[in-house]
């Protein structure tokens, strides 16, 4: 019972963060939301009994992907809507 509620809450958080990625115009904030999303995905993998996938998702999604997105934002631009130099 409680597991079900926990699971549903995590799923709710997933949709919420994904929507935030969609709506944020500040790309840094969107990247942070994507990092949050990765945490929750890893948690979901963990709940679904896939700890090895959770490790990969934690290392890749939360650590490296956030990092390379931030480097790319630093190299290009931070705000959506002012894409031109």
């Amino acid at each position, binding site marked *: 019972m409680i597991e079900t509620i926990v699971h549903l809450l995590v799923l709710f958080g997933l949709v919420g963060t994904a929507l935030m990625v969609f709506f944020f115009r500040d790309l840094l904030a969107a990247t942070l939301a994507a990092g949050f999303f990765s945490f929750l995905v890893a948690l979901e993998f963990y709940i679904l009994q896939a700890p*090895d996938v959770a490790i990969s998702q934690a*290392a890749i999604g939360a*650590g*490296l992907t956030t990092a390379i997105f931030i*480097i790319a934002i630093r*190299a290009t631009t931070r705000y959506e809507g002012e894409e031109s130099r």
Partner: protein
Amino acid sequence: MKMSKIVRTGANILYPFVLIFGLYIVLHGHLTPGGGFQGGAVIATGVVLVIVANSYEAVTGMLQKVVFKAQESLGLLLFIGAAAIAITLGLPFFYNFLANSGSIFGLSVPFGPNHGDLNTAGLIPIMNIAVGIEVWGGLTVIILSMLSGLDRKEA
């Protein structure tokens, strides 16, 4: 540019820890959740930690892109080589000829829940090591080349 002294000191202390922990994950790939890719990613993140705490310029002397590139290729060659040894023995590609052989990693594995022994599973730990080396190099190269692409205002 460097981050503050506190971060640098912390990163320098954390680096050996991350490295040994990543190697632990790599080597225990057949016993725990983990394996070559996960361990390699952990180690690569450790390298990235050092790079980001110190500046990119400060560490390029110690952490060279060439080394990591070579490491990446070497890991993949090891992987395919380990798979291809079986052909020279007259067995199919990827045949796990080390399993149950009694030599290194050669103990037999009991079926069902057990306590786990490092010295089992044959070719799989070796392939995990190869993949770990490869991922370690590959992900570091990715971050290094992305960082080197940044234009620095203060050179």
